[in-house]
């Protein structure tokens, strides 16, 4: 009996070699191989489920107890049958496993022709760096083609989840992880953080914008000239600070409430603190709030903002910027 088991296992392995060989040739579109894999699983899963539930229901009706003291048939088991339902699941699992292995290789082996970008996560947002060194927030622009994304985090563990490209990977402070995707069609694709990272977890959203090559190059040029000619008014300086300090992960600037209050229209507004006192948002309050956010928590929000020690000039620049956004 053992010999037969070994033979069957060997046969299953031989059958699966073509799958492994297919993995050796690079398939360029992991989305396709993942979708195929899902279909295979769905068919197998449905068959397994019906194989269990149909006999279950049938037996319950067929073998209902007819009279009170009736016993079932005395059957201890059947070695042949028991081996059968050991071997068949084994073969199914080996086939699925080999296919999955091939899909995994597609998803993880970066093709040679690719560009490299970098994404740094923080509570709660993503800083994106293009190969040209342009930094954007919660918005990664890439040209059509293969993109390798190097990942890390500033604080807790986050995850860069790209459902449209069937891939995701954790982002860990002090460690470097990666993923890659094939940016096939121009368009916007959602990014989620898929590792619980605190109260702002579900608002930690971003997008990947895939652009035609020429559009992407034009965008890069415009960004570079913008940086070269930037005039450093206090307002512009404040805007840069707000962006580079990653304030916008938690604060909206279009009236939306995220983990923190929206920044537009905030200056001059009266806010209620947790202890019930009312405060007018002025230059002094903004400075205090940035330096020590936990000292005067505003009612209705969590205590998650990190303190930032800036120069007086910088606090004033931020206040100047806030005055401009209504």
């Amino acid at each position, binding site marked *: 009996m053992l010999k037969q088991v070994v033979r069957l296992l060997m046969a299953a392995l031989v059958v699966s070699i073509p799958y492994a060989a297919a993995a050796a040739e690079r398939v360029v579109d992991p989305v396709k191989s993942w979708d195929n894999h899902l279909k295979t699983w769905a068919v197998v899963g449905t068959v397994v489920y019906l194989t269990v539930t149909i006999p279950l229901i049938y037996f319950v009706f067929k073998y209902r107890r007819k009279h009170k003291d009736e016993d079932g048939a005395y059957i201890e088991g059947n070695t042949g049958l028991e081996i059968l*339902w050991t071997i068949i699941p084994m073969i199914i699992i080996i086939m699925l496993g080999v296919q999955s292995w091939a899909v995994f290789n597609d998803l993880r082996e970066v093709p040679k022709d690719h560009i490299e970008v970098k994404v740094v996560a923080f509570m709660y947002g993503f800083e994106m760096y293009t190969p040209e060194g342009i930094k954007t927030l919660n918005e990664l622009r890439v040209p059509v083609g293969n993109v390798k994304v190097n990942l890390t985090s500033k604080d807790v563990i986050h995850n860069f989840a790209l459902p449209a490209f069937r891939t995701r990977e954790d982002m860990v402070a*002090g460690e470097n992880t990666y993923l890659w995707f094939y940016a096939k069609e121009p368009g916007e694709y959602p990014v989620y953080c898929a590792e619980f990272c605190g109260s702002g*977890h579900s608002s930690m959203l971003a997008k990947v914008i895939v652009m035609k090559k020429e559009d992407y190059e034009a965008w890069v040029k415009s960004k570079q000239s913008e940086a070269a000619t930037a005039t450093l008014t206090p307002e512009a300086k404040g805007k840069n600070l707000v962006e580079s300090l990653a304030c916008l992960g938690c604060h909206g600037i279009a009236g939306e409430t995220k983990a923190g209050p929206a920044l537009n229209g905030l200056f001059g507004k009266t806010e209620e603190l947790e202890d019930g006192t009312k405060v007018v948002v002025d230059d002094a309050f903004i400075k205090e709030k940035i330096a020590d956010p936990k000292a005067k928590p505003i009612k209705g929000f969590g205590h998650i903002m990190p303190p930032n020690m800036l120069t007086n000039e910088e606090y004033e620049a931020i206040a100047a910027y806030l005055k401009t956004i209504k």
Partner: protein
Amino acid sequence: MTTAQPTGFKSWLFTTDHKKIGIMYLVTSLVFFVVGLLLAFVMRTEQLDITKKVIIDADLYSTAFTIHGAAMVLFWMIPVLTGFFANYMIPLMIGAHDVAFPRLNALSYWLYVMAGLIAVMALILPGRLDTGWTGYPPYSIVGPSNTAFYVFAVHLLGASSIAGAVNFITTIITLRAPGMKWGRLNLTVWGLFGGFIIQLVGVPVLAAAVTLLLFDKYLGTSFYDGTKGGSPILYEHLFWFYAHPAVYVVALPVFGIVSDIISTFARKKVYGYTSMAIAIMIITVVGFETWVHHLYVAGTLNWTRVVFMWGTIAIGVPTGIKTFNWLATLHKGSIELTTPMLHALGFISLFTIGGVTGIANGLLGLDIQIHDTQWVVAHFHYVLAISMSMLCMGGIYYWFPKFTGKMYNEKLGKIAFWITLIGAMIAFLPQHTLGLDGIPRRYWKLPAKYAPEMRIAVIFSYITIAGFLMTLYNFVHSAIKGEKAPANPWNSKSLEWQIPSPPPFYNFEKIPTITEGPYEYGKPAEEPAKSH
């Protein structure tokens, strides 16, 4: 030896009787089950509108799913199985007066109560537990959570589990009645035996993992700080080394109870007894080769992920053996659809859905898209949370006449069962769709387009919760007002049913001598020995 049963408050407080300790475990774990249900209700209510706040904000939502997970896994499922069922049933099933170390047994229970009190204190005192029941660093270290409560609760619970494991492994090995061979043990005992081995091997690792968490948070060490040479991923490895096998601590006894219930109500010997017991022991061992599937996207080396994929999906084989053996036991049986039997069959149908979706999680290539998504939430509520809670209710119904001496209300039991099953079948189905779209779990708010799916999920969750509450009402009402139960209402052949209900102090007046296994229904009369 006295046969008079001591009564009164003190007799419970200072008891070392395995039956009283078992009942105390049951009552305490049911209290935590209700806490878990309430939190489930609160979270589902919050999902009535998935775009803006309904009743709780994001902070409270994180606390709710943390305590929900911890209460359900650590304070309900594991204790009801390794505390109540093990305590009450093992000595009765193997023919012993009590467990091997009765006072250690009492200590186990009181440590569990203290751990529970600490968990409750974490809710009431300032600061809040919001890390998820997994307590991953660095969030549990740098975040607002009062991690010390988590760590100390795990320590006390761990001490309780280790003491329990030592106690019951010793009991099963040394206190079996004469003639109670390993091949004559109830599969419930086999399942618990496997579960206790996992507890003994795994819990110390978990205790070490959370201790380092404590050091990192309060003493400034950096075991889990990636920027100072440590690694938060180390914690994930240590945590899941125990916490994944922990689901088998729940599953193995559950498998055993299913076998016992099916055999009794199909009046038929468990099909393939030996392969059932072997499958339990295989899961006990292979269960420790699976944990990295929780780290499939955690930046672990690619080849380690492949190795653990094989370990993970291999679990499907012994589980399949068990399922097909249950089906074969029903074949040519004499089936009576009592409330416990319905629960066992309902368990199989829910568990198989979760088993099939679990293979998808185990398959490395597939999992990358659905890892840490709503799919996972749906999967483990089918395979573990609801199906196994339901089966625990079935087990309580099954032995209810034995441990209370009263009959439960059969009609209410069946109605409650169908309500729970209908709710459970649908409640988590829609979340599979969200998962395939990659929507992460532990999300306070969701993209607006999933509102219809989530509305269905909420309604059927309410139905599930209502079903469970009816079951609990049935227990309480029947324990007080139920009719007196006969010693063996199911006409079972298993040893625990051969003594009065409830069992007398010290169980057996004289330790019985065992001559056959617990499932010998319809055994043909032995032919007289042929003469040569």
